[in-house]
């Protein structure tokens, strides 16, 4: 098993919003499990990647969804020509070889699935594979990080208290206008004026949250728009394509945002 394939070689760009880097480093130092909260596309995954690179640790990412099961995390028996064979799941692999295991959008997974991580996230730091009859003591480098978006939390999709209370949490939000503009320049390759206008559009759309929009325009989408502009698409077209069409099917909202965009770009 070559765990080094999960290592990140090049520095992922990350612009700190405040002191989250130091906080994370301290948590990793004590191997405390960390939970990263924030709206979609605000840089949670990028942050975790960046930290893994900074600490020089491999990172195994699992994107959670409703169908994910305990065996998808832990591992399962598969059939091959000689009968059955055990295959480690991502969580087991991370615990065994010492990687950061990152469970993205954890609320998407069903609550009872997540109970398997309990033993790994307290003082025991162990994972029992009952089907295989093995007890894994976690590697000293192992750390568990989860992320979720409190925005579309509903009664159905929430973490159990017993899960929540095993993590220390970092709260993320969209970066302030200046940082966001800087990110767009750096990632999307647009000039400062365009970046500022994109940020203005983003703020405009965030005002509509709760008036027909579930979420504002994420930093990620703005980076897309910037990239398109960089490729020579006209700013208004790029914004419609990257910022408006993806987030809404509502004709009125679309028209409103289109109008705001043409007003901002003049």
């Amino acid at each position, binding site marked *: 098993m070559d765990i080094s394939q999960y290592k990140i070689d090049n520095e992922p760009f990350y612009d700190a919003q405040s002191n989250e880097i130091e906080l994370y480093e301290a948590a990793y130092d004590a191997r405390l499990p960390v939970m990263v909260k924030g709206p979609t596309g605000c840089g949670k995954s990028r942050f975790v990647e960046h930290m893994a690179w900074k600490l020089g640790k491999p990172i195994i990412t699992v994107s959670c969804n409703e169908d994910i099961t305990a065996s998808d995390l832990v591992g399962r028996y598969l059939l091959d020509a000689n009968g059955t064979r055990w295959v480690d799941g991502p969580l087991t692999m991370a615990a065994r070889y010492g990687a950061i295991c990152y469970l993205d959008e954890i609320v998407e997974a069903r609550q009872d699935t997540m109970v398997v991580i309990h033993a790994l996230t307290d003082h025991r730091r162990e994972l029992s594979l009952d089907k295989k009859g093995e007890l894994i003591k976690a590697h000293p480098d192992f750390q568990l990080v989860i992320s979720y978006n409190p925005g579309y939390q509903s009664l159905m999709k929430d973490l159990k208290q017993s899960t929540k209370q095993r993590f220390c949490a970092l709260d993320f939000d969209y970066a302030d206008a200046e940082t966001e503009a800087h990110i767009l320049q750096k990632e999307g390759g647009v000039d400062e004026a365009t970046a500022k206008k994109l940020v203005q559009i983003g703020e405009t759309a965030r*005002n509509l949250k709760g008036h*027909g929009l579930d979420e504002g325009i994420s930093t990620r989408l703005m980076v897309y728009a910037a990239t398109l502009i960089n490729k020579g698409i006209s700013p208004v077209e790029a914004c419609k394509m990257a910022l408006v069409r993806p987030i809404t099917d509502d004709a009125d909202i679309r028209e409103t945002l289109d109008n705001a965009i043409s007003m901002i770009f003049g």
Partner: protein
Amino acid sequence: MNEELFAEYQEKFTCKFPKAVELFPELLGYAVSKLSPEGVEAYLDGANFLCKIGQGVEPVLVYMEVMPDIASHFGKGTNKMIADYSYLMARSPNKKALIPFLSTLGHVCRRIDRIEDLEFYLQIIDEYVEKTQTVIHGHHSLYESPGMVALLESMPQLISKLCLNGIRNFIDYGARNYLNAPDEQIAYFKLESHDAKSIITRERKGTTFKDVERHMDMLKECMWDCDLPFQTFATAFDQLRKPVPYLDDELIAIPDVYDEENGVSGIDRYRATLAHMMAHKTWSSQLMADNFAPHMQLFISMFEDCRVEHLAIQRYPGLKKLFLSLHPYPEKGACDDKKMSCLRYRATRMSRALLDENFDPENPLLEEFRERFHKVMAEKGEGSTTQDMAELGIDFYVKTRKQSSDSLPGVFFDDTEVSYRDDNRYIWFYYEEYDESDEIMPNEYENEEKIVENEGGLPPRHYDEWDYISEGYRPDWTTVYERLHPSGDAGKIDRLMAKHDVLAKRLKKMIEMLKPQNKKRIRFQEEGEELDLDIALRSVIDFKSGQAPDPRINYSHTTDSRNIAVMLLVDTSQSLNERNEQTGQTLLELSEEALAITAWTVEQLGDKFAIAGFCSDTRHEVRYQHIKGYSEGYTDEVKARIAAMEASYSTRMGAAMRHAAHYLEGQQAEKKLMLVLTDGEPADIDAKDPQTLIQDTHKAVEELQSKGIYSYCITVDPKADEYVADVFGNQYTVIDHVDKLPEQLPQVFMKLTH
């Protein structure tokens, strides 16, 4: 015109009314200047003819006054056509309408171009007469059409707002709906009634605010982060003062319709108006009006308008193009300050210059202030104040003042009105301590509808009603007042529940069965949670024996959950007070019990659930009483409201359903269900034709269907079979034994949502 010709014409003019003879030379002179010799002949023929129809001199004079313009506009044949038509009208019971007809004809003709249109116009009037004349025992036309005079007198206003087809619809609507109500018909055609306004708004050309309301709401929210509500005012009625948009601390007043202007569409005009007012809201502060002379206020307002627009354009550069295309362009030298007051003209020129760098660049005065303005804006930007603009405004006024003409009564208005700007009441306040601002600037555009006491309720909402005869909606026909249902003794409901203890226990069992089965196993999955051993073994055997194995060897679980929102709409009309002879209970009491048990049941099931009662006292007052909201639990407060239910008035079901649907629509649920509990057919005291409200309710059911709401009726009316299927299709249950209602209602509910 030489004397010979005049004498010839005078000879041909055979009318001998002294007044006509007296005015003849003047009228003829005008006619000769407008018409060809042939035309003048026809004109005189027409006048002579009208002279003899026995209506005195007045029609002759009006005819002679208006016809030259009309005839020259349309050409040959017009004189005869109008004279003949006038004759017919003079012979009909509507002879009183002749003068209004002739005197408003000029206004009408100015708006239409072809003689066919004129014919059409006459035809429209004929149609109206036909619909409204009273026929008694086969003798036609014994009585006049009541609204005729009013209609013709309103014609100049109508033609300025509507096209001929629109007028036809307008007339048709009035003739049909007020056939037996002459007073209302007259009010309608005088454009005094609310319905007339609604119809004109509907028939108008241009963009109505209703069409863009949601868009404007969102623009306001997202571009300006403002939560003031909009209020529309009617623009279709020429008042002494033309209504102008305004902004105050409580609302944004905006016209109900915008036509296209300068190639800018109605929706863009709304956007410009909104942007301007929002810019005031964002950047303007108040000045004390008493400190400045009225003329100064004009200029200060203008500079302040320009300042906020300048800032708005900095934030949203696209606004510049929009503002420029709407801002008037007062031509150099258009206003002569020796004869007229050029205040407005100067202000608008300055304002254009501040907005448009290319406007009149050589004018030293404009240049000076343009520079000063831009200096302030460059230095201070968003930090600039209304006070800065006051200084500029005063200086500008002092520099340009014309002692001799500024106060002249004749004010030069052409090209000086900036249509997207508000009246700037937002930036002025007054010293007078006892004058409430409301009194100085009352909310003058408010509807003068019947005001219904609605303390503690929400502002009224209007809904269209379906008219099955014309197959069209009557716009804003009903007015729904929503208020919180009064509360009574919650203990009463608990006692009722105790009485139905057995029933509750039985229902509870049913609920258990209905409750989402937490887990359901789905077999034969290629990817799943667990290995399905039976299938897996079979596959292994297949595999080992050399056959293709079935790869679907896993199973997984899904949760089976209910996601429905329910609205229970209860009829609380007077008839509910009827007592059941066997049990001695009134329908109202039974309804209360049924509601209590159903509410309890649904609460147990955990569905989203709301209850409201409704009744109506004519279309002007449909009462909608909130009993339980979606976010409320089945608490003591809700119980107290159910306990206080009272029955009165009638059943205007369509309006109540539309109102309830507006809440249900906002719920996020896969299935939406509206249960209507009633004891009789939809009816109201102002709807004489029983079919009207039945058909309207049917239409409401269809509307709801298209919004994804399933309506279902539960009726206790034994005669319901006659009509309920017409309204609800097959979505209804008739409960024959009224005393079983408390038991049946929750069961019907569970059956529906199973």
